[in-house]
């Protein structure tokens, strides 16, 4: 995790999805990999049941939530109305 786009992702309340690569259950510390391929140490003690291969949401070095992609609210695929240029 770093400061991208000229703003601090920790300060701006951003959290990033990361994949758990290795987890030490005794300490709750894990090595997680972000979308950019960069690995960092993450404290997973707050994410119940997270295991290797799972996706977790990480903020300021701590996992906050277990990702559940299948729970996403479906988006309708209805196309733009005809002549539907935005005003």
């Amino acid at each position, binding site marked *: 995790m770093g400061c991208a786009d000229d*703003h601090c992702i920790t*300060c701006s*309340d951003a959290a990033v*999805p990361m994949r758990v690569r290795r987890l030490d259950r005794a300490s709750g510390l894990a090595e997680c990999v972000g979308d950019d391929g960069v690995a960092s140490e993450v404290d997973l003690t*707050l994410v119940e049941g997270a295991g290797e291969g799972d996706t977790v949401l990480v903020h300021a070095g701590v996992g906050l939530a277990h990702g559940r992609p299948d729970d996403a*609210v479906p988006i309708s695929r*209805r196309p733009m109305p005809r002549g*539907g240029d*935005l005003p």
Partner: protein
Amino acid sequence: MRFVDEFRDAELGRALAGEILAAVEPGRHYKLMEVCGGHTHSIYKYGVDDLLPANVELVHGPGCPVCVIPMGRVDDGIAIAHEPGVIFTCFGDMLRVPGSNGTLLDAKAQGADIRMVYSPLDALRIARANPDREVVFFAIGFETTAPSTALTLKRAKAEGLRNFSCICNHVTIVPPLRALLESPDLRLDGFIGPGHVCTVVGGRPFSFIPADYGRPLVIAGFEPLDLLQAIHMILRQLAEGRCEVENQYKRVVPWEGNLRALEVLAEVFALRPHFEWRGLGFISQSALRLSDAYADLDAERRFSVPGVRVADPKACQCGEVLKGVIKPWECKVFGTACTPEHAIGTCMVSP
């Protein structure tokens, strides 16, 4: 990645824009507040507002943890940073926030040992590596960041680290929202709820907004489609005459929040009776201090701090920006006296 890429799909974005267009009532002006600074950033990064009809206006809320820190607290931090033997640690944006007599970056230039960290756990590592120095972490942030500070303090206590302490500026999101909803000049039709705060606190703390103030709130993710979908959900509630808390960010946010995180927060922190917010004044029960069980790790008790309230600069309109009354560029000093290099107010520092 299934959390990100599919929520950036341009075709779906256009489809959602069409749905939004179909949901608005012509002639009615909609003002929706995005509470979280992270949403504000996504809106500008992806140009989300360019996809909205002209009568749907997005207004920025008080949810930027850097913007709300008052000058007096920065001064307290700088005073500790100047103490002999102290290594002072904080997040990047905080370094540029002005106190009454300069920023932490200025203090660093004057010789204070101030280091930027990405997480409080990094500050703990610095403390372990420097047992002969006092390492202080300047904690800021809403409920998203507070668990990270809490876990760090728990580890420090468990390890018996004597040279680590924390100056706690953690704030909570509900009290400023309530203050905002009480303000007489408010004209908002609905709220985009702070998705990452909700991973911790869940949806329930926000139910007072529809119940007591008659405004819908939709908890939203941070990708462009998340925001468009949340806006559509708010507009649909308004069109159908419904008013409730809905969760667009279900793939991450459980309704009950993160119970383990809430337990840790309750153990490590206690509510302050009141706390000053930049531009908003004092708001009761809106911030956290270290609980009595963690008093030994409280930098405010370990060091003497000025603790003086410093009035916001007269020219600064951060308060009106934080309440959504004006846009940042409508501030009198925006881009002229107040620039990213020489900020007068906090809003200029952090998106």
